[in-house]
């Protein structure tokens, strides 16, 4: 390993940690995806450097595959972001804290960004019937579907 390789490795590591900082601190869904891409750049840089250290093609070939996967990931992530945005009309990640412990308070919101349609949950998110209890009324009636579409 030459000092030159060392410099590239350090730059890769720097890109990686910058992406990680962005992923952890930012609350915008798109910025988080972008930060993940920045981490990916750091990884690519490291892989290419390793390939050069070993004098083989694998580093670059692996980076090409990483690129492919990153493209897929970006497409899917944006689709997910869009569908999340459709439900909450916001890109704020803190709106989505349904997995918290039941007795934990919800994260403090800046503004009532979410549109509450009064159904107690996010619009037409599929609801699970609690096990063992006969549902009192059909979970999704035509009228409720109509109401949700009328809302949007």
């Amino acid at each position, binding site marked *: 390993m030459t*000092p030159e390789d060392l410099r590239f490795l*350090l730059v890769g590591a720097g*890109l990686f940690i910058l992406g990680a900082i962005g992923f952890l*601190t930012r609350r915008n869904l798109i910025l988080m995806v972008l930060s993940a891409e920045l981490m990916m750049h750091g990884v690519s840089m490291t892989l290419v450097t390793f390939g050069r250290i070993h004098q083989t093609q694998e580093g670059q070939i692996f980076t090409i595959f990483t690129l492919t996967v990153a493209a897929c990931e970006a497409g899917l992530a944006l689709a997910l972001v869009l569908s999340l945005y459709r439900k909450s009309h916001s890109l704020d990640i*803190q709106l989505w804290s349904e997995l918290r412990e039941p007795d934990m308070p919800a994260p403090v919101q800046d503004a009532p960004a979410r549109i509450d349609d009064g159904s107690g949950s996010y619009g037409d998110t599929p609801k699970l019937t609690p096990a063992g209890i006969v549902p009192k009324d059909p979970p999704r009636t035509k009228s409720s579907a109509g109401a949700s579409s009328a809302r949007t």
Partner: protein
Amino acid sequence: MMDWLQAHPMTVVGLVLWAVGVLWLMPGKQAGSTRPKIPGLLLTAAGLFAFCLSCGKPQTQLADEVMFWVFAVSALLCGVLMITARNPVYAALWFALATLATCGLFLLQSAPFLAAATIIVYAGAVIVTFLFVIMLAQQSGAAGYDQKSGQSVMATISAFILLGAVAMTLQQEKLEIGVPVVVAKAKETNAAVAPSPPNMSAMMQASGSGSPAGLPTAPADAPEEKPAVPGNLLSSADPDHAVGDLKGLGRSLFSDYLFAVELAGTLLLVASIGAIALAPRREQGAL
């Protein structure tokens, strides 16, 4: 560890300055904190400079040296600006710049195809898509949640501790990168090859009308009796094609890694189908 701290004070100073700069630039816990950006930028730049300086000074040509400095500093600086940007559109643009700088570094590492592909994929496609989405979702400009950040101190400190650990490891050179098993075999095969790893300037010189000073760019720390780890577990160094040679890359991709290439293609197809399935439909209403 203490040895390293004493041996490389510059690295430590650079890391600390850099981290403070990032923290300065980062949006605070509360919205509306309008810190001036200039001190943060200065701190970051100083930290970056010290960090890159501490990486040692290899004996490369001046052109390489300049290009490395330009690309590395701009990549890292753009990264910092991206993750601290208040406006997501600016963040996307800083990311595009960081991508371009990274591609420059790829070129320096004799990976021209990769550099081109990354520019095409990221700057050409991904960034544009991101910008579309941002403009679709945030037509009213910067939102409240973009003015704030969570756990920034913890994230920054832990991240820079990681970077420091990596730097320490690399600078102590205790990590033997390379596999001794293939050394003996590689020795014979490598004998015929020019020992110099081709880099950007070497390639330019080789393609330019046969300059006599083309070859002596061999790094000094790669003596003949101890060839620098010329291969890995997967394959030995290719004697016919230098690293970054497009021909060798293509041959390797479509012979050794044909199956993986097909898999990656399938993955792209699946991902595009998935994205179409996930994306909101027209009859479900506009965004």
